[in-house]
Structure formats: structure tokens, C-alpha cells
């Protein structure tokens, strides 16, 4: 069962919720994997403090002529949807940062001269946090495209996960390709939101993303005692179940800022997480066979 914890808006509490859920379930002797898919600013490790088992460099494919001289038919340039390869006077010019690694140019080359070579863009970390399986992805500084790396860490963390394992994916914020890569595989998308106009606005986008991807969705309202009722009304109108409301709690903020697990410092917060976890599992029974 794969749960993606997502939000339209950043800073709503995705990592707080997903690390807490993963910890709670792992401590309750469930098989759990936590996946930090926010590869542009991963921070789940600050709270789960895993022992690193393996760090693997992640590569994407880019085309190369390997120094050969071609007849410059221009077919590679013609087929590229991203203007990432130019055919020029017996050679090609590849713009790595524009290339999506689709391989169309390699297939299109009439001479079969183009090959794919790997280009490193980031690191996938696999670790253990007291019996909790931990994965995270970290994009290299200066890299522009994070989506392949996110798909990579989602694949690495889920390929051997059996149906009983609970996989909690901490998705990047927003609703672009990077967020979709962390959500499209999920059995259930948990949207973390807040009752502010910003939260409401970005929640609409996140709901549209989930709908477009055909995902089952549920919500949790964080800092539920601030703002107004627009977020609740929106969720009700869309028939999205609200599994828990978590009021603002200074003890949680202080604990989190000290990279502790706030469940240990606030019993109110801990009971919200327990309630949320139960809600997710009962929803899941309607999801997985």
C-alpha cells in the first residue's frame, strides 16, 4: 500500500506528517518504508536519522556521437521535442539540461551513430531508522530537472515492496511533473493543507492533480485553528474525507525545529497522528484488495 503525502502549497507539514506516520507504524511493528521524494530539498533524514546502508549515484541518459563524424541528416534535431540536440556540420550539439532522455534521437539517427551515455544528476540514499526502511533522493546542485530522480527513488523504494508493506512517500510541493512523479504510483494521496487562503488556493490545484491522475484522495488539515473555513468547505464539496485536524501547537514547532519527533513532545499531536493513521488504514481497506 503506497501513500503519497502531498500538498499544493509548500510548508503545510508534509514532512512532519509523513515522518510521524512512518515512525508510528514502524514502532507498531508494521513493515514501513519512508521515501523522501522532495529531492530539491530533502529533510526527512533530519527527523528519522537513518543509518545509511547505501548511497547510489543516479544517472539520466543523454545522447552522444562518441566522437564520430556523421552526415548531419538532421533527423535527431527534427524529432527532439525539447530542442535539446542540434545537428551541425558532422557533429551534434547536445544541451544536457534540456534533454529528457527519451532516446528518440538515438532511434531517429539513420546511421545508428548516436548512443546513450549516463549523466549523473543526483544521489539515492537507502538507510535504516530503527527498523524503518528509509529512502531519499538528493538532486545535485545546479541541476535543473528533478523529475527523473524522483521517479528513480520511487521505483527503487517500491520495486520490492510487497502488498502488506506501508510505503509513505513524502512528495515535493506543487503540482508540476516532480510532484506528479511522487503521486502517480500511490494507492492513496494524503493532501496536507491548512485553512488559509493560500492553503485553499493551492489545495484546489492539488485536488485537480489527483483527479487528473485518477488517485484516491484524503486530507489532513494542519494548523486547523488558524484561518477560516474555506478549506473545509472545499474538501466537503469535493467529498474528500478529512482524516484529522491538527491544531497549532508551540510544543510541536519547538520539537520539530530541534529535529526531534514531535510525537514524543506533544501528546495532543501524537493522538492526532494516531487518529490519522487509523483513518488511512481503514480507507486503505477499501483501496487494496
Amino acid at each position, binding site marked *: 500500500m503506497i501513500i503519497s503525502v502531498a500538498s499544493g502549497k509548500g510548508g503545510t507539514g508534509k514532512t512532519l506528517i509523513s515522518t510521524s506516520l512512518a515512525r508510528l507504524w514502524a514502532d507498531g511493528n508494521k513493515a514501513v518504508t519512508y521515501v523522501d521524494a522532495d529531492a530539491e530539498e530533502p529533510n526527512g533524514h533530519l527527523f528519522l536519522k537513518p543509518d545509511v546502508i547505501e548511497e547510489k549515484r543516479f544517472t539520466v541518459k543523454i545522447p552522444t556521437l562518441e566522437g564520430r563524424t556523421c552526415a548531419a541528416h*538532421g533527423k535527431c*534535431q527534427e524529432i527532439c521535442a*525539447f*530542442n*535539446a540536440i*542540434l*545537428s*551541425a*556540420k558532422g557533429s551534434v*550539439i547536445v*544541451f544536457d539540461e*534540456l534533454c529528457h532522455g527519451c532516446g528518440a534521437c538515438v532511434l531517429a539517427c539513420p546511421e545508428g551513430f548516436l548512443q546513450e551515455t549516463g549523466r549523473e544528476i543526483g544521489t539515492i540514499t537507502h538507510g535504516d531508522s530503527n527498523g524503518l526502511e528509509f529512502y531519499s533522493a538528493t538532486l545535485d546542485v545546479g541541476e535543473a530537472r528533478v523529475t527523473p530522480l524522483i521517479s528513480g527513488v520511487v521505483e527503487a523504494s517500491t520495486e520490492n515492496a510487497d502488498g502488506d508493506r506501508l510505503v509513505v512517500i513524502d512528495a515535493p510541493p506543487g503540482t508540476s511533473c516532480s510532484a506528479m512523479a511522487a503521486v502517480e504510483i500511490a494507492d492513496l494521496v494524503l493532501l496536507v493543507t491548512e485553512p488559509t487562503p493560500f492553503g485553499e488556493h493551492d489545495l484546489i490545484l492539488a485536488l485537480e492533480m489527483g483527479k487528473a491522475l485518477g488517485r484516491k484522495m484524503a486530507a489532513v488539515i494542519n494548523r486547523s485553528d488558524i484561518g477560516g473555513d474555506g478549506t473545509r468547505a472545499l474538501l466537503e464539496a469535493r467529498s474528500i474525507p478529512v482524516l484529522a485536524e491538527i491544531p497549532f501547537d508551540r510544543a510541536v514547532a519547538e520539537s520539530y525545529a530541534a529535529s526531534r519527533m514531535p510525537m514524543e513532545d506533544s501528546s495532543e499531536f501524537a493522538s492526532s497522528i494516531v487518529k490519522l493513521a487509523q483513518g488511512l488504514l481503514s480507507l486503505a481497506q477499501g483501496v487494496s484488495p
Partner: protein
Amino acid sequence: MGKLVAITLEHAGDLDTLIDPRFGRAGVFLIVDAETREIISTIDNESVEAAHGAGTGAAATMSGANVDAVIAGRFGPKAYEALSRLGIQMWNAPQGLTAGQALDKMVAGQLTQMQIVKY
């Protein structure tokens, strides 16, 4: 035949039309013989709506048109790299010139030529 020059225009026109300051997202390219001032062709810029890679796409169009030089207001970093590597000259024209004025200034050596870097 003289040097083939592409001049960016906001929309299809002739040598009396104002140049488009942008290269990658220029509306059209007017291809002109620098010596005779004859208009060889007008090419629509297919990259104008590209989400990414407008500069490299437009550079590919220049390569396909076999031009020796391009006149535009400015060139983006990827367009600059692509045109450099394609060996196509880049000339910066100040805004407000017509294509004909820009061409005359280029021929007279009164425009700034961007240095072509070896990559």
C-alpha cells in the same frame, strides 16, 4: 551572392519593419542577402511558443536556413552557445531599428558583434 543574414522581426514584413529584440522568441526571421539587400525568404519561428529550448530551437532553424549571421537585440545563453557552436555570427542591434537600418549598420561595421566562444 553575399553573406546570408537572418534578421529578427516581430511579425512578417520587409526591410522597413522593426526588428524583434528577442532571438529565441522572435516572431519571424527575415533572410536577406547582405550584399544585394534582396529578401531571400521569411521563416516563421516555430520556437516562439516553446516551453523550453526556444533559443536552441531557433538556432536549429538558423542552421537549416544556412545563414552566416543573425541580427537580433539580444541572444539568450543557450542560443549563444548553440550559434557559437554552429559558427553563426551574432550581431546585437539596438531596439527601434528597422531591419534595413540594422543590416546597413552591420555592413558598415557599426553593430556590436558577439564574440564566438570555442566550446
